[in-house]
């Protein structure tokens, strides 16, 4: 697996975790749990943003990996 594809796979995993956190934040009935899940979701979003920036860089550096 190339670096580009493993970074993309990892980002996809992050997005999945973010989605699950967001779902749990909506469905939980305890306010404290909702808050923890929501904060976790926000942190995940920040991480995803940084990873996306990195993917953009990789694709610019090595255009042959674009789209993988």
């Amino acid at each position: 697996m190339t670096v580009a594809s493993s970074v993309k796979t990892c980002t996809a995993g992050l997005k999945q975790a973010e989605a699950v956190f967001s779902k749990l934040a909506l469905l939980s009935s305890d306010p404290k749990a909702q808050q923890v899940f929501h904060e976790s979701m926000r942190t995940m979003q920040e991480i995803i943003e940084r990873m996306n920036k990195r993917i953009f860089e990789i694709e610019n550096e090595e255009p042959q990996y674009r789209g993988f």
Partner: protein
Amino acid sequence: MAQWLEVAIRSISFLTILFIITKIIGKRQIAQLSFFEYIAGITIGSIVAEASLARERSIMDALIAIGVWGIIPMLADYIAMKSKTARSVIEGHSTVFIKDGKVLEENLKKEKYTIDELLSLLRKKDIFSLSDVEYAVLEQDGNLNALLKKDKRPLTRSDLQMPSVNEKEPYTVIMDGHLLVDSLAKSGKTKEWLDQELEAAGVTIENVFIGQINSYGELYIDLFDDQLQAPAPQERPLLLANLKKLAADMEIFALATDCEKTKKMYERNAADIQRIIQQATPYLSN
């Protein structure tokens, strides 16, 4: 009228009256928390027994007696609710039997309890050794409640200095294959959501014996067919495992890259994920 018929009619009508009176007095009558409810309970029972069997007694007499015995505890409850002094007279007060780990013999004697009875009451609370008890009190209704010494109490999350976690009560939304609309509304979920969850579990509502929604909005189901294994909700433990994997991935990326700036970025991501894991673990582990 035939003798048996009269007894039957009397019994049934007094049963109805007794049912109504007990409903009016409320749960207190069943719990027999105070002295008054205790004696009223016994007496009303005897009156009804007498009235249903003794045909020479007029029904009116029995009704008056039941009325008086039913109203008195209600009146006593009302007065007790209004005044503190009346409360201690009517309902009595609790007696301390063990204080600072020492048995108070005077109080034991005052309540006419023997040491054997005290030990037996403690055993009912799963306490076999007197040395484990810090404080024990005999309540008005004759129950003994004991406070264990701190060292002997069950371990809790706060003892381990773990972050505090709260969980809300679960809601039973499916019973006997039927949807409980009120309960579903209370849980804040919709019928559509429930249908989706059931579909994901691969069952129809008719096959579900009990369905409960827990604090995390997960549906636990028990099926009529015991041969079938309903899938248990796995999302949260799975998420925890995924987070651990993602943190490890970030660390691998950080090691693999040469660029200082990128390395920093991956390390920061790994630290962030670690922090999430730490915060959310109490909520994610089953």
